[in-house]
């Protein structure tokens, strides 16, 4: 009986986390379009609901009622699996995100590795979708995307090592608590910039959205998808973007901590701070989409391998020697 109780309690907790994440993904799509329109002096979606807030829900409803077309020459099992994989991977990563000191679904020892592993698995949804479509544009898009995501993961991994050197633990709550005095964005500012740009590339956001460059590849790996399956790709993509923003705010912006421990700031509840930081990073993502032109593919590869990777490696050595010299290494 007790086990059954634990089971239902967990289910309740998971729903309590997942439903807000899904709703905020819908809202974030609206925000993305609004910011984009704002930069270009357009209105953006403003018809459905107050300020157009329900535009995404209307779109989702439209996708649900559209027909799902499965190409005759495609590999059907993998074709259907691909959006499911993307969506699932984007959602399961939220299990380890700590919203406050007590509000975390799974407080595991290797939380940051789990996040990194799940985000590196994300490439499979895209490859599977691109290959199973059995068509040229999706395949080229998938190949591009796979190479791009693998390249930028390397530098994200090295950046994570930088943070871990300052923390001395792989647990996400420990990483946040280590920033109580000083957010890591200050001592590791160059790493924060590189993390931000790599996160753009990792989630295939503009200016690195070459996998779906419409001028060359129609819609990249999503070309053959329609209806709900396309919507799932789309939701997974935005959930991934939110996840990267959450990762950035936990690693560099102090997670749920308030900037200063003073009266007007410390009455705001801890999860609110994390949400505010995620929103801040997301608005930066949306602004960059609007103002930066798309990179060429060789420039993208050059940036990842020849600039980011050596620079972040050098920064690891610098951080390690600094901590060693001033005897600041955690746990020593």
């Amino acid at each position, binding site marked *: 009986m007790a086990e059954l109780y634990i089971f239902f309690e967990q289910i309740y907790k998971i729903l309590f986390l997942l439903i807000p994440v899904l709703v905020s993904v819908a809202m974030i799509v609206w925000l993305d379009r609004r910011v984009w329109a704002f930069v270009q002096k357009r209105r953006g979606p403003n018809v459905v609901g107050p300020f157009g807030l329900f535009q995404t829900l209307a779109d989702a409803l439209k996708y649900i009622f559209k027909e799902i077309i499965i190409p005759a020459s495609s590999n059907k099992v*993998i074709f259907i699996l691909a959006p499911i994989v993307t969506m699932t991977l984007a959602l399961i990563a939220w299990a380890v995100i700590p919203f406050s000191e007590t509000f975390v679904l799974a407080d595991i020892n290797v939380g940051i590795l789990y996040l990194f*592993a799940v985000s590196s698995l994300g490439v499979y949804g895209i490859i599977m979708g691109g290959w199973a479509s059995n068509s040229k544009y999706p395949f080229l898009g998938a190949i591009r995307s796979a190479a791009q995501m*693998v390249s930028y993961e390397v530098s994200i*991994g090295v950046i994570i090592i930088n943070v871990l050197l300052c923390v001395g633990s792989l647990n996400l709550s420990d990483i946040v608590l280590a920033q109580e005095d000083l957010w890591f964005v200050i001592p590791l500012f160059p790493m924060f910039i590189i993390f931000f740009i790599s996160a753009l590339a990792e989630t295939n956001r503009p200016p690195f959205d070459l996998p779906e460059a419409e001028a060359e590849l129609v819609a990249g790996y999503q070309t053959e998808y329609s209806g709900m399956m396309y919507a799932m790709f789309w939701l997974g993509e935005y959930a991934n973007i939110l996840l990267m923003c959450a990762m950035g705010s936990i690693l560099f912006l102090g997670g749920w901590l308030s900037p200063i421990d003073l009266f007007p700031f410390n009455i705001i509840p801890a999860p609110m701070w994390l949400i505010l930081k995620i929103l801040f990073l997301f608005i930066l993502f949306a602004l960059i989409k609007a103002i930066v032109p798309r990179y060429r593919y060789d420039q993208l590869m050059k940036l990842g391998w020849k600039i980011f990777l050596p620079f972040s490696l050098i920064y690891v050595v610098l951080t390690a020697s600094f901590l060693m010299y001033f005897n600041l290494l955690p746990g020593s």
Partner: protein
Amino acid sequence: MIAHAIVFYIFSLIAIVSAIMVTVSKNTVNSVFFLILDFISISCLFIMIGAEFLGMIMLIVYVGAVAVLFLFVVMMLNVAQQKNEWFNSSGRSSHIPVGLLVSIIIFFELIIVIGGWKYKPDLLDSITIEINTDLTNTQSLGSVIYTDYIHLFQLSGMVLLVAMIGAIVLTFRQRSGVKRQSYFKQISRDRKDGIELVEVENNKGVKIDA
């Protein structure tokens, strides 16, 4: 405890079935997908015995990087259409003896490992490094790898580096006549290099790129 056992058997079943499917499935790309499923379920098993660091690293390195490149090669070579003919042909393949030899060797190695562990329980006591149960996986791995086994660790890094350089040297080719972009050159250009004002004489014109 029962739930633990059930989950264990589910994961090991998936691992074994997908390992068999890797060799049996007709489409090469499907084989790679089954290999990935195998990796994932094995890393779940690692996490279940409490080796969470190993499990996660397995996910990141094998599934996140190695298998992607594997899939990449298989897709690019277009072997998807090339059916796995092992079971269709009348068994005249010359690969079978080699494969059998390798699998027999691996089988006996496994027997030796499992036998040593099963029938000589005191084998575990012969480990010279003491195991501290207070530390997490990651900490204890780090404290051993970077102190006692630093030479072996660096040696394995060197082996990987040599392999990488070898691969680069093998595939490197110098192409002539390619126009390369240099950011420094582009940025350090100023007006004088780009524009030249010429007085053009009537009926003579100017020579460009002389």
